[in-house]
């Protein structure tokens, strides 16, 4: 389609420029944080990636549910694309988190609700991706993947609630938090949302590429199947399977 031929290369350039602009804003425009100084600048990438990973995880569950209802392979492809991209963003969160935590909290890692849930999320993404590679049956694979995607999604709030009940030391939410004093500087907030936009654009481009790869793979499988069927039909049929189709 011509729109695709123009839209996606343009989107790729926009995403790249937006990421670069976000990088510039983070290092040269964002105000200095009064207690944490330079290290606080990792906050923009960290939080934006976390939100994007959340969007991706939601997309995984949604495409799983849509696949189970509509049985359209395109939803399965979207699920694969969202999970792989979300996995990358979750990994970014898990790497930038400790880099920020070490100088501020004095430790690399602490088992508080948000860290632990993010890690559980990462583990479930990994299991989801492995499940896809380990199930050979192409008919069954998307169903099983969809089921696991939904289950994992349902589980995240449960994990978060359980851990928050017993342990917790993460800073309370600065964006939508209940505490009016823990506000975010307007400039910081603007740059955070700007960075989030950049990561979302990157996410969209990556997801689209991954989706296309999966679509091409699906088309190849179909062609191969057609070829197998036609070459089989040309040969004398040995025995018709009962009930096979």
């Amino acid at each position, binding site marked *: 389609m011509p729109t695709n031929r123009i839209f996606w290369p343009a989107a790729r350039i926009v995403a790249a420029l937006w990421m670069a602009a976000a990088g510039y804003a983070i290092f040269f425009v964002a105000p200095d944080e009064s207690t944490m100084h330079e290290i606080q600048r990792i906050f923009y990438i960290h939080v934006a990636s976390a939100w994007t990973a959340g969007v991706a995880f939601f997309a995984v569950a949604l495409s799983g549910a849509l696949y189970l209802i509509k049985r359209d392979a395109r939803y399965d492809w979207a699920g694969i694309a969202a999970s792989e991209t979300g996995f990358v963003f979750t990994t970014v969160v898990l790497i930038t988190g400790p880099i920020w935590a070490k100088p501020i909290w004095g430790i690399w890692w602490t088992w508080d609700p948000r860290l632990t849930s993010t890690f559980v999320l990462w583990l479930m993404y990994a299991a989801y991706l492995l499940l896809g590679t380990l199930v050979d049956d192409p008919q069954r694979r998307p169903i099983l993947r969809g*089921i696991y995607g939904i289950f994992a999604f349902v589980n995240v709030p*449960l994990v978060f609630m359980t851990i928050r009940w017993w342990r917790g030391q993460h800073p309370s939410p600065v964006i939508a938090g209940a505490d009016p004093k823990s506000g975010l500087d307007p400039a910081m907030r603007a740059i955070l949302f700007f960075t989030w936009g950049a990561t979302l654009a990157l996410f969209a481009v990556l997801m689209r590429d991954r989706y296309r790869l999966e679509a091409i793979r699906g088309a190849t499988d179909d062609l191969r199947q057609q070829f197998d069927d036609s070459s089989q039909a040309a040969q004398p049929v040995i025995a018709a399977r009962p009930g096979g189709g």
Partner: protein
Amino acid sequence: MSPRPQSAAESLSTAPASSSTSSDSFTSSTSASLSLWPGLWAIFSKEVRTEFRTRELLVTTAVFALTVVFLFSFSFDPTSEESRRIGPGLLWIAFLFAGTLMLEPAFLREQTNDTLSALRLAPIAPSAILLGKTLANFLFLAITEALLIPVFAVFYNVSVAAVLPGLALVCLLGTLGIVIPGTIFSAVTAHARMRELLLPLLLLPVLTPILIAATESTAALLSDPPEWPAMGLKLLAGADIIFLTAACFLADSLLEE
């Protein structure tokens, strides 16, 4: 190529010489068409009967769990004080591992003679098949826990007699929380390669809330003086309900051919 089974009852059980008993209870339930309970009960009793003919699964799992509890004694000093601190987590890790191993054959057993197709052909709702198996797995894991807790109390010098009702309640809710997703994932991994590794990989992250809530509840009960783990029980019950709802919704997709 074996022909499709004429009657689902003929191939219901993988154990030989069992068709007479299992078909009795089964045919009586087929008249109830797609209603949930008769089918659920038929699957449950078939699972239990198959298991109690050999008791393979129960014996193997109990010995495995015992080995885990035994080996944990080397990772810390099993005095009364230390046990109270670390024991509950140890106990639930043992249950979790035992459950993971025990759930593996729940659907795999049906593959040997392709009996799952027979179950699907039978006039039983897919959710009844899933829940019947879940209930059977619950019974097996609960028996293992009932065997293991006294041994744990003796090994680790913890007194459980006074808090037994509370502990039973925690075990009941915790075990449900393990077997509901566990049975679903055993059906998911039955078609996968490396399923022995994949099942724990899928299951254990999902069981994180169960592990935390059950461990903390058990720790509250075993503390001195014992506390009633109201919040833990609520969380466990909530997780059970969420998992059960998801199971009922997903059963049709899970068991379709």
